[in-house]
């Protein structure tokens, strides 16, 4: 190990004992947020490693949660560069491998009404994908807060129509079973066997429809929350959209409607007006700052908003409690990062990573030396996260270790 971690080494004995007694597996929920344009890493990472770090511009809004937050530098998936490879943020080395959240959803998503929730704070110009299921199919992301609200708390708009389609769908299935029975009388024995697949599938679908019908009228949790009259879907309202999404995410976790949420933060060329000041160029143009101080300044203004919104979300989780009366934040792992390390150069090395909550040992800046032969990968952090969620997994994509020694 060439990694110097002065803080760990100088930990008082008592604290070490406490940390050693911590066990993996206490987290129950997972939230992953991915920002299309990443962060200006120079303004994110402190110079110092360990807990005694000086506050950087981008960490400033998050400092009220310092004890529940870890910043990690030097992690990535060792994959190619470019916008296309952004999509591997949650997949590991290869775009399209099942994403972190979907692995988690398989294990912790079954008991809730919604297995996993995929959101995007508005629509970006780059059609980035973030979540991939086991078949490698990218899952669509909901862009409108009103639709998320409907899914979580309102009955479907056209619940009558859906109900009609399911109920009449059963007669329709009776009809095709009739076709299959007629067919069965005329075909060979091998084909009868093949038609067995059809009958089995019909029975399976009938059961699925039964479940769907029961779920349709299931009462939704009641929440005291007022959405604005219009969806902030317009590009300049992207931060507003993000704020609403965070509110809805906190409510979704509080009501235990779901335990796995992902949110994509698009980045387009819109010119934001922040605190009454109109920025000098579009968000995307700012991200290609070429280290121009003026552009970097304005970029940090946008990115500080991301961090402030994240901080607000962590705050909501801290105040809300689960059924056991414990703070939601302590049982929710919140990952904030990106598939791009330096948007100015389209580089996908050294990805920005912030990890909060979930009962892990936080408070430090962990600096990974990428060039060290045994340097952990981002996938190793994901292994630790999965284990903290009580999922027995010791590999993730190209990573086969973990980062437990830093976080447990």
């Amino acid at each position: 190990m060439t990694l110097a971690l002065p803080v760990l080494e100088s930990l008082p004995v008592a604290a070490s004992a406490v940390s050693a007694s911590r066990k993996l597996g206490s987290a129950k929920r997972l939230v992953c947020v991915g920002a299309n344009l990443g962060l200006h890493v120079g303004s994110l990472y402190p110079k110092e490693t360990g807990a005694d770090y000086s506050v950087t511009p981008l960490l400033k809004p998050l400092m009220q949660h310092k004890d529940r937050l870890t910043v990690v530098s030097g992690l990535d998936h060792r994959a190619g560069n470019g916008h296309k490879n952004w999509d591997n943020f949650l997949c590991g080395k290869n775009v399209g491998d099942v994403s972190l959240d979907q692995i988690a959803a398989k294990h912790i998503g079954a008991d809730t009404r919604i297995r996993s929730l995929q959101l995007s704070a508005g629509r970006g110009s780059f059609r980035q994908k973030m979540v991939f299921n086991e078949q490698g199919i990218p899952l669509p992301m909901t862009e409108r807060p009103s639709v998320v609200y409907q899914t979580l708390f309102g009955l479907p708009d056209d619940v009558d129509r859906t109900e009609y389609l399911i109920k009449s769908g059963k007669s329709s299935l009776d009809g095709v079973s009739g076709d299959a029975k007629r067919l069965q009388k005329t075909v060979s024995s091998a084909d009868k066997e093949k038609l067995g697949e059809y009958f089995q599938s019909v029975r399976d679908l009938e059961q699925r429809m039964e479940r769907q019908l029961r779920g349709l009228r299931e009462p939704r949790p009641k929440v005291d929350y007022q959405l604005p009259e219009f969806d902030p879907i317009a590009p300049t309202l992207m931060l507003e959209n993000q704020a609403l999404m965070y509110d809805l995410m906190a409510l979704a976790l509080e009501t235990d409607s779901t335990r796995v949420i992902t949110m994509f933060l698009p980045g387009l060329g819109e010119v934001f007006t922040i605190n009454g000041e109109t920025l000098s160029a579009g968000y995307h143009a700012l991200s290609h700052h070429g280290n121009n101080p003026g552009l970097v300044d304005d970029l940090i203004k946008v990115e500080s908003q991301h961090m402030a919104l994240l901080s607000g979300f962590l705050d909501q989780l801290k105040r809300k409690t689960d059924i056991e009366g414990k703070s939601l934040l302590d049982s929710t792992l919140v990952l904030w990062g990106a598939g791009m390390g330096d948007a100015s150069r389209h580089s996908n090395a050294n990805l920005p990573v912030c990890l909060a909550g979930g009962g892990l040992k936080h408070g430090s800046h962990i600096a990974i030396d990428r060039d060290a032969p045994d340097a952990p990968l981002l996938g190793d952090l994901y292994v630790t996260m999965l284990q903290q969620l009580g999922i027995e997994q010791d590999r993730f994509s190209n990573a086969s270790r973990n980062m437990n020694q830093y976080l447990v």
Partner: protein
Amino acid sequence: MLKMTSMALVCRGAAYGDPRQQLLELIRCGSAQTTPLRLIGLFVCILGINTNSFGDSSLQPIPDASYEFLETYCLDCHDDFERKGEISFEDPEIDWSNQESLELWERAIGALRSGEMPPKKERKPSPNARASMVDWLDRSLSEHAPIGGSTLRRLNRREYVNSLNALLDTKYELPDGFPVDGEANGFDNQASALMLSGPLLQSYARVANDLAEKLFPPARKPVEPITSEVLGKDFTYAYSSGLLVGDTMRVVSSSDALSASATWPSRFEASATGRYQVELTLSAFNPPPGESVVCRVYAVNAVEAPGEKVDTVRQLGEVSIQSGPVQQYRFEGILEKGETIALRYDNASLAEDQEKLAAHVKRLFQEDPLLAAAYKQADGKVERGRLGWDRLKALMKSDLLPDPPSEESLDELVSVVIKNLRVTTEVLEYKHFEEGPALEVSKATVFGPIELVDGKEEAYWKERASKLLGRTKGKSDEEIGREFVRSFLPVAFRRPVNDEVFQEYWELMENEISKSGRLEDGLHMALRTALKSPYFLYRGFEEGSLDGYGLAARLSYFLTSGPPDSGLMVAAADGSILKESVLRQHAIRLIDSKASKMFIRSFLDQWLDLAALENLTPDSTLFDKPRVFKYTDDERSAFVEEPNMFFREMLDTNRPMEDFVDPDFTYTNVSVGKNVYELPMKSSSKKDKKLQRVSFERGGRFGGVLGMAGVMTATANGVDTQPVVRGVWVLENILGNPPPPPPDAVPALTPDTSKSETPKEMLAAHMQEESCAACHKKIDPVGFVLESFDPIGRWRTEYPKRSGNSKDKKSKLLAVETDGVMPDGTKLNDIRDLKAYLVRDITPFSECLSEKLLTYATGRHMSYGDRKLITEIVEDTSEANGGFRDLMLALIQSESFRMK
């Protein structure tokens, strides 16, 4: 069977790392997990299970004479104890219903016929003994593996969506995430791999529901009209195309992309498709003297707007604004649900466009020499957006400003300034936000929907629905409903439907109509039921020879991936399609139609693995710097299109089969022609990207399926090449003689390769080991010949230097060694010799391609009987000097094609 899955795994396994290590892995074919050979083994096993189900166990004793032959010549090595090559013939009984024993005995007859077995050094049977053994095996195999034998065949994804679209006359696309099909025998349309499951039936049901909702939608609910008032500050834009100044939104550019020119209300979108009243409060800010500001108003989807271009959106109106105080402009227009209005300064002379921007900048420079001087001072380049404009302003005020450029150097400055189109446009936008000319938007008031109307989408589906129903005037609901099922079901099911079925569907309809009183609900029910019926989802219901309808469907799905058209249905109905001449006539008609493009694409995607190119990005180390050849989308598409166009010409002009291997033509574009094929192609600017037909001498390095860049790329992994992978691929897909799976029991080989320098020397090690050599003497010579082609199909004589491996830095580049000896003793020096070898006796290739074509056409594994027939067809065609088209037609007319 080296298809997608195995390729992908091989790619992953071999993407990085020491090439030597990879070769060693390949040599250790018995143990390495990602070894292609091992995957081939797995695949054959799956195949065995799938085709196992027909025929009952029929255990038969081997006749005495034949068993004596085995005892004398075979059992020394192939008994239960020795099991050489994992093969034993000791069991005196054969279970002919077992696919594995069929394959075993088929290999045995092949080895006996070719003389491969018994081996040279062993005792040889007399020609008579050999002949009678072959004769017995031939009779047994013909009896137990006759022509035909498929089960019901489900439509695959491609066939399913084409069937829907042909039936409904639509261009429907399956939703994202629609399940993909399983694969067998190297293709995605094989009965044994096209299973049905609950989730898949659910996907079919969803599509059926979706289509029924579109064609026969529920009654529309009334929507209350409302007034939405949007102030200037509540307008939005995507890139910096707008700026709020005071209370008004200013827009200044006429770029094509809405994201770079338009503004639209952030808090209004139509709640339902209908007619809306729009009132705009607009003004012109500093228009050019004598000009008005033309504001065009478009209907745009609020979510999609940032991605739209001006020529892809609907124009609602246009107003011409003179300078002066704000004014109201009113009009009415149709907005679809989710749409809003977008406003754009149509005659703004600033636009993100090479020519327009040059003219615009030049005029600005002429009008304001200070601006030109400022740009000159900044070397033509400033920051993007407002910062850039601020800097220019500061420079214009500065004392250090140089003299404005002279007339001659002005053009030069303009060309520098517009080099970065987007940056300069965004900088100048800020100039115009400040100084004009600009379109100013103060307010928009939208009232509606005043009345509900059909949107474009709804109108489209309504038209489809009325086409499906035909004439309905003056008919009762019952008449319309009954006529619908009578006309729709036989087309959907691709065969006549009996009265019992009609009655059943009518009753389903009637039940729904009686509930709501709406005919549409009945039609909805009938449609979505038919679209998940086994009659629609499957084909091939009869046994043995296909009937007219079965044959029509087979021909049509083979050549068009779609259902039979009306011409075929007529020929099926009167039975004429069963006549050879009529079947031939329809085959020619389909081959010559546009629809056969589907066949060529999907067949080549699978036979030549071209589908793999979709997800393959060649490693950047393959390209010299500066990169001339970049493997751009156009170049990649040329890799894929070349085999398609080549195959098309082979088929259309009935070329001799030898031309598949050694033709005098191909299709390529300038970049690929020059950089990959080293052809003297001339650039002619705009046509460069297009593929053109090029002629060359026969007998060269490139040309033919083995010299095509697409094929050589698909058989590599984007980083390096593996002789064994390509060798196996050729045996499987060109020679039709795939090696058997490597035996499991053989221990991993660790030959002494410490002194070897080249891949060739390393692989030579397993030619020493007898159990490896049996297959590798077939695989390796072919694989090494193809080493001349790098991972993207370019000719090479040396292996590249490996970066990142410090030890290699000093060492010389390894030479590519391509010489080898085929199992029959033919010496090969390079690809030209292999081509000559293949052309000398084109029969194995013709048989291989025929087998692939019939496998694809019939959806089943070719049995011994099928293959015997193929041998005859290929021989007959060749004797008649027939070309590829003749062969295709002969295959279509064959018993194999007509048999289920």
